């Protein structure tokens, strides 16, 4: 397996795996503590519309998917503030309509016949240098936002009503969390695909939650656990010639099962 490390595409895959794992550890923690898992799933699937748009217009996939996912996040943000009690309905709508738009745009793109499976289940072995820059930049932005606004984001996540009373701009931070979630989902699609994104954003976080006393600790642990699962999943995928995204998720699930068994006994 060591000789595999000399291949450029394997090196790219490893770097991408680490970057995306750290980002999804931080953002996954926010998604879980804010009870936005279903919402993140909706945005992930809606971003398929962005992939379709990018293919149709000949744009880079990352740009199209990012624009579409951020637009979906903003739409969700507006709808949540106006009609909070109906938000599950709207998320379901965005989820399905986004995908439908993507499918149709790809249908009407002349001469296009690339396997769309790679977006549904990930294509970590086809990460380009540009992809890595995008992932690195996003991780940088996420870390900077967390350092700068940690206390506000913590306050909004823990008790938004009280935060509002203390003069924190709840709406701004809620929207910021959604936008960062949307962008993280887009880079995670490259690694595990949009169908499996949710598992990547929640399994490591669930384990980290049990081990952490604070949100910052939870983010750090989630990032490290996600990195471990991603690298282990890649190794398994390489050794047995399996789909990488699915391997990562199955390894994560096995890890979660083992953790729960051991954690109960302690």
């Amino acid at each position, binding site marked *: 397996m060591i000789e595999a490390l000399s291949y450029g595409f394997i090196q790219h895959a490893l770097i991408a795996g680490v970057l995306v794992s750290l980002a999804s550890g931080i953002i996954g923690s926010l998604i879980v503590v804010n009870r936005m898992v279903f919402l993140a799933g909706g945005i992930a699937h809606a971003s398929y519309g962005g992939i379709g748009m990018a293919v149709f217009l000949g744009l880079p996939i990352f740009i199209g998917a990012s624009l579409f996912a951020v637009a979906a996040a903003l739409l969700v943000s507006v709808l949540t503030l106006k009609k909070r009690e109906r938000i599950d309905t709207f998320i379901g709508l965005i989820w399905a309509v986004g995908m439908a738009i993507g499918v149709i745009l790809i249908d009407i793109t002349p001469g296009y016949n690339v396997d769309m499976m790679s977006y549904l289940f990930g294509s970590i072995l086809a990460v380009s240098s540009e992809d890595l820059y995008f992932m690195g930049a996003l991780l940088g932005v996420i870390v900077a936002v967390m350092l*700068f606004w940690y206390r506000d984001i*913590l306050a909004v996540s823990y008790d938004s009503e009280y935060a509002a009373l*203390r003069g924190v701009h709840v709406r701004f931070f809620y929207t910021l969390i959604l936008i960062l979630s949307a962008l993280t989902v887009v880079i995670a699609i490259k690694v595990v695909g949009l169908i499996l994104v949710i598992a990547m954003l929640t399994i490591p976080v669930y384990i980290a939650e049990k081990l952490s006393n604070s949100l910052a600790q939870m983010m750090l642990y989630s990032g490290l656990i996600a990195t471990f699962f991603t690298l282990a999943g890649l190794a398994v995928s390489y050794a047995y010639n399996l789909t990488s995204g699915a391997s990562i998720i199955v390894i994560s699930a096995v890890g979660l099962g083992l953790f729960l068994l051991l954690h109960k006994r302690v």
Partner: protein
Amino acid sequence: MGVIDVTNVSFAYEKDLVLENISLTVEKEDFLAIIGPNGGGKSTFLKLILGILKPQKGTVRVLGKEPSKNLSQIGYVPQNTNVNTDFPIKVIEVVMMGHVGGTRPLFGYGQGEIGCAMGALAQVGMEAYADKKIGSLSGGQRQRVMIARALCAHPSILILDEPTASIDVAGQRDIYELLRALSKSVTIIVVSHDISVILEYANKAAHINKTLSYHDISNKEKTFPAHARGEHFCEVELLQMLGSKSGCDTSEPGNKWRTKP
């Protein structure tokens, strides 16, 4: 001018009038209990004082200014403190949420803020729990932490919404003893169904059911003669007494309120 001045305030959600022409002045040394039936407008009244809602008629002033301009003067303890108990957050971090605006360091929390939060925790006897996860505390301990959070910004008014709703009897007494100690330096407003507060701890009572009737109960013997003689009366009777529109100072309250011959 009182600490809080509410003048001729009316408020309606949509078209249903919830509060009608309410006036109330809260003085600095008051320990005010707000009672009344569910749906009578107690929470709406609190939201007006906190500046979450704006009155359609009349004015609310906190230390002479609009509530939203004087956020740091009001410490608030919300009703349900059992939400989000799985949240990975330390006690000290919850308390530091209480800081408002002002100077803050570029990253994280300042030494002054941490010291201030520890001071607030010491006031409620919880400083030993500063690094514990909030979810590992009991209901009563969590309520103390929420009070510390409200005290963190050194408010001159402390408002509590049903502070003992989910706490056992011994814990309730502890909370009220704490409030009594705090009331020496802070104005306290408590919304409660718990009649023992009114009898033992509060010196003013306001009954809200669309309209407001106000009572000075600092002299317990005069206000509750039956209680003073060791007789018992039930909650409903007490609410009726305090809810009567005639007010306290009308003729012979002793006769009117006596519940047993």
